């Protein structure tokens, strides 16, 4: 009888401990037991419609700069050589119209984004420009790498902020994309290779006027065509609805 009591005490203690641990949640490290799905553990809500604000590099993003304009890029001699040989007619002739819409360049294009949860562990980003889709896989949900693709294979993780207990969760999204097909970092033929890795950090900010912004810090590393890592941050404003959502096909020029 006494041993049964002890067993009950033990079970109750274990239960309480488990609950307490689960309630603490977060912490950034691997917790004990099954990790909650990415959707449930999201410290920020990225879903909705977003529009890119072309307030920087307007001349290089809103319109396609002339051939040979590599301002703000980090091309090495091989990259310049490849860019100098750009011929849009060739791309049009081959039907390869989306080379400037790959993951390293897509977020920098003027576009609207629609962000949804494809499933509990996959965040889906649709861009209306070029009608592109990127899938961010959390944890073990990422499929094995197959053929290199325009949007590559993106593995995502939440980076949780340190903070006081009792405060709401906060943090940002980190996405690493590999397995990319070669493409253009800029529409005027400036290249990136299939060895490129893209690392992105997505932060959510609430502005004083009530707007919400996501800022995507993008680091593009290409050992073939870049002399160093290219880094920039791109800003998107949240929209109340799908007004203005306008899927358009890729274009070369």
């Amino acid at each position, binding site marked *: 009888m006494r*041993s049964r009591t002890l067993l009950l005490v033990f079970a109750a203690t274990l239960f309480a401990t488990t609950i307490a641990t689960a309630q603490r949640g977060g912490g950034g490290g691997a917790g004990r037991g099954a990790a909650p799905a990415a959707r449930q553990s999201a410290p920020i809500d990225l879903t909705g419609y977003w529009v890119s604000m072309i307030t920087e*590099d307007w001349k290089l993003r809103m319109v396609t*700069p*002339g051939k040979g304009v590599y301002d*703000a890029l980090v091309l090495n001699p091989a990259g310049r050589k490849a860019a100098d040989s750009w011929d849009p007619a060739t791309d049009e002739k081959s039907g390869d119209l989306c080379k400037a819409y790959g993951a390293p360049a897509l977020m920098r294009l003027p576009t609207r984004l629609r962000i949804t949860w494809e499933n509990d562990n996959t965040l889906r980003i649709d861009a209306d420009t070029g009608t592109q889709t990127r899938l961010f896989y959390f944890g073990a949900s990422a499929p094995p790498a197959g053929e290199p693709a325009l949007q590559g294979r993106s593995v995502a993780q939440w980076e949780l902020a340190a903070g006081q207990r009792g405060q709401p969760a906060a943090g940002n999204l980190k996405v690493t994309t590999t397995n990319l097909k070669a493409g253009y970092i800029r529409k005027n033929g400036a290249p990136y290779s299939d060895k490129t890795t893209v690392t992105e950090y997505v932060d959510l900010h609430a502005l*004083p006027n009530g707007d919400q912004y996501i800022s995507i810090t993008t680091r593009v590393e290409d050992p073939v065509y870049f002399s160093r890592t290219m880094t920039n*941050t791109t800003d998107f404003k949240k929209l109340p609805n799908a007004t203005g959502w306008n899927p358009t096909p890729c274009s070369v020029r």
Partner: protein
Amino acid sequence: MDKALRHRIIGLAFLFAVMLLSIPSFAQPARPAVPTDIIGEWRLENNEDDTTAQPPLGDYTGIPFNDAGRMRSDTTPESIWGTPEYQCRPHSAPHQWRGLGGARILKEQDPLTREASVYHIQFMRSLDRPIFMDGRPHPPAWAPHTWTGFSTGQWIGNTLKITTTHLKDGYLKRGGPQTSDMYSMTEYLTRHGDILSIVTVIDDPIYMEEPYVHSTTYAYDPTSVVNTETCNASAFAENGGTNRHWVPHFLPGQNKAWTEWLKNEPWVPEVAVRGGAKTIYPEYRSTLTGGLNLAALNVPMSKSAFAPNQRVASQSPKDGQVHVMPVQGNIYMLVADGVNITASIGPDGVMLVNTGTAEMSQKVLTTLNELVNNVMASPTPNRCFGTRCPGTWGWSSPYVNAVINSPATPKPIRYIANTSGMAEHIGGNEKLASSGFFPRGGGFGTAVANPGRAASVVAHENVLVRMSTAKPPAPAAAMPTDTFFDELHKMPNFVNGEAVIFYSAPAANTDGDSLVFFRGSEVIAAGNVFSTVSYPVIELDKGGSIQGVIGGLNKILDIAVAEYRSQGGTLVIPGHGRLSDTADVASYRNMMVMIHDRIKDMVDKNMTLAQVKAARPTMDFDGRYGSTTGSWTTDMFIEAAYRSIKEKK
């Protein structure tokens, strides 16, 4: 060991094991409030809006400018940097993160808790920029503005949110698109490993259709060094440095060079380089391809977080209250229902420059008495100990006497200076002068009964003329008792330990304006020659003129000296609005010169007053200083400027 005991031991062992498992989680210390340290040396990653070169003149792409912003930028050449007041100014706050030379972030800690109390951000061409993390409020709207403004910070998750107010007017990009001095800046600093992302929100509804949001990226680089750029103050004004009052500017439409750069970047459509909120949304491209007319284009535009007219007015609140702003040295600024009064407080008593309206005079007097008591008669802890504290008149318990000693009664108002005869500045003369005491006349040190029992009132003689010829005339007790007529008038004695000098500003707002310079405190009471909330009131029928206002502003700039980097130093108390410095006065003077020259150009072209008003020569400043209602409207100001130019012609 019996079975029960064995079970008990096993059970306790299990319990102990479970507790041990729990301890690492429960015992971990609270996670720090500051999640990611950002201090160190940072290198600009120049992969956005190439900042290594001067932005081309007229390139407003990506900027949500309104028409006023465009006009202001088109008419302001980079050579404005050659003026004496601007040649040492640092980059404006919106451009700092984009300037060359990297950034350094330092941290001050609370010595007890080691929490970050202040971050300091430094750039090559900047002043030290403190970010206060201790929860302090921002200063009142009538406090001075600086190049880097007043910043407070707050951690939100991994991001340091910085809110900055009290910024001077400047530019968004080096040498180019302009800002007003009413904008707020919000920054979000997020560290990702060795990368620091900075999102900057510039909210300037005076010159923008919506807040301007852009981002900049830095890389951690402990080997980099943030140098400081010194200023050698050489005169390199456009005119060769021979006229210190020269204000370089373009007349509207005169700047034809703003599309020159398109020769080198021919793919950029000329129609887009003027900026505007519509141009920064993706759908703008449809107007470039001819698919849609710009006027028909709808974009999800955002609004400013504040109303600009309210922000302007808040510098000079008409709230029926008297607000006290300590200035420097002996000087305090009293904001009395929107009218500024300058008070010198010291061992001689009180000297006021202007007295506000008659309606506010009792509140001014009450506030002044409280202020004087606080400044001059507040009990202080005993600092008199032992043998170093002998009784002045022999040994008489100096320790305890120092503790129980009651401070002497503060001295009364001795002097009142009037910078003009405007009712809002002389309305309190009668009451405040009567409350004071200046030992005038009388033999053997005895004051005569009247007017010797009141404070001395000093003003230009034309103030006395205006007050005495007014219908009805001002009360005798309000009249100046001491007048001057020269361009410079010194108070005969030091006041509160410093020289006080009057400078006449002939034919400015009226024919009796003057500036009052407190030479030791380095403060100028400017009266209505200078305002931070409106165009200057010019009373043509009382001898005022726009040329005289410009002359008065130039006089202030001749007297005043900046402390460092074109800010601080001599402080200027305007007739209305916030406490200012040389750069603020220069900005106002520049505006007045630009408006004068624009209207003069129109007068020279024989344009009528109606045509001049229709041409809107003040359009780029109207959102900041103009008004369509009240006692002094933009139309009235243009008319006064027009007539004074035409009459002089």
